[in-house]
């Protein structure tokens, strides 16, 4: 790995961990957005690395307490989000860039699905730890899942497009030129 890449990984992970450890309402987080963004801009490997590292550090430093047996599941869930960010980018490059509106719509739907998968993966951790039925565990946490999914859907739909453009500009690249929207 090149020094530039390592620096990039460290910066993105620091941003994620910093936001993750900031006091915030439960189930509202920006980590998945940044992991997806990282995967999208710098490839699946980076997305997976940022997601995994962030959740590893978060597991030990989280204000909600030590992650315990749940840490590997949180790592897996967040790494998946970063991975899909890279895959989505590849798909966009191959098939042609969608318009800004379509992009926002697609990523918001994708966020809903990925957040749900993340919740299911993390619940599996709880199930193993607490030895309860997974369906019961998912049902009992239904409202937490709803808050997480809805907040991520809104966040991805409203912020990701802007973030992609900002980071691209900062990096001096134009990897993602959108078709101009006609209102």
């Amino acid at each position, binding site marked *: 790995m090149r020094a530039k890449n390592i620096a990039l990984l460290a910066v993105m992970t620091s941003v994620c961990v910093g936001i993750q450890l900031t006091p915030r309402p439960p189930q509202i987080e920006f980590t998945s957005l940044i992991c997806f963004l990282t995967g999208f801009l710098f490839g699946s490997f980076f997305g997976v690395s940022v997601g995994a590292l962030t959740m590893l550090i978060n597991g030990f430093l989280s204000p909600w307490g030590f992650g315990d047996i749940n840490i590997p599941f949180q790592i897996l869930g967040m790494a998946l989000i970063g991975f899909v960010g890279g895959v989505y980018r590849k*798909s966009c490059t*191959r*098939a*042609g860039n*969608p318009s800004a509106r*379509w992009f926002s719509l*697609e990523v*918001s*739907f*994708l966020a*809903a*699905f990925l*957040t*749900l998968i993340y919740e299911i993966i993390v619940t599996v951790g709880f199930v193993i730890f607490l030895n309860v039925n997974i*369906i*019961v565990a*998912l*049902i*009992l*946490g*239904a*409202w937490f*899942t*709803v808050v997480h*999914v809805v907040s991520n859907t809104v966040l991805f739909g409203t912020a990701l497009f802007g973030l992609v453009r900002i980071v691209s500009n900062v990096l001096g690249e134009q990897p993602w030129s959108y078709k101009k929207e006609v209102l």
Partner: protein
Amino acid sequence: MELQKRSLIILCLGWLASLALASFVAGYYYMEFQNLNGLIEKYENVIMRVNICIDYKELNETVVWYNDTIVSLGCNLLQATETVALVNSTYSPAQQASFVNAINGVSNHGAYFWMWQHWNDVQEKWEYGDVGADRYRLTNNETVRWRYELPSYT
């Protein structure tokens, strides 16, 4: 073409997610319902069900029914009414009973008062209560009615 295929897949995934979420929420309320039912079954021998009607017909043509209201066994009409409505009452030591001043913000006004009646199952008619609401002990499956009305004795 591929763009459409990808979009379609993503939209389907989002739709699946919303479906799963809806199922979880439905499951949550189903479990709550089951828990509540279990609780009611557990306390079945210390509760009873009554039907309470609040009749604002003289005021605004509204009649509201609270059927199968669960109250504790042996509770009085005033307590039962307080479980379904906001009641303002004054206890009169001389009468040793409470006088209802208002129900759900509708106060006795002028010659109009809140009167209560209970349904006579045998004669199949409403009968006026002859005691204060807090002196009347309800029985299981009893039907009672509060009426905002001009009492016949006025």
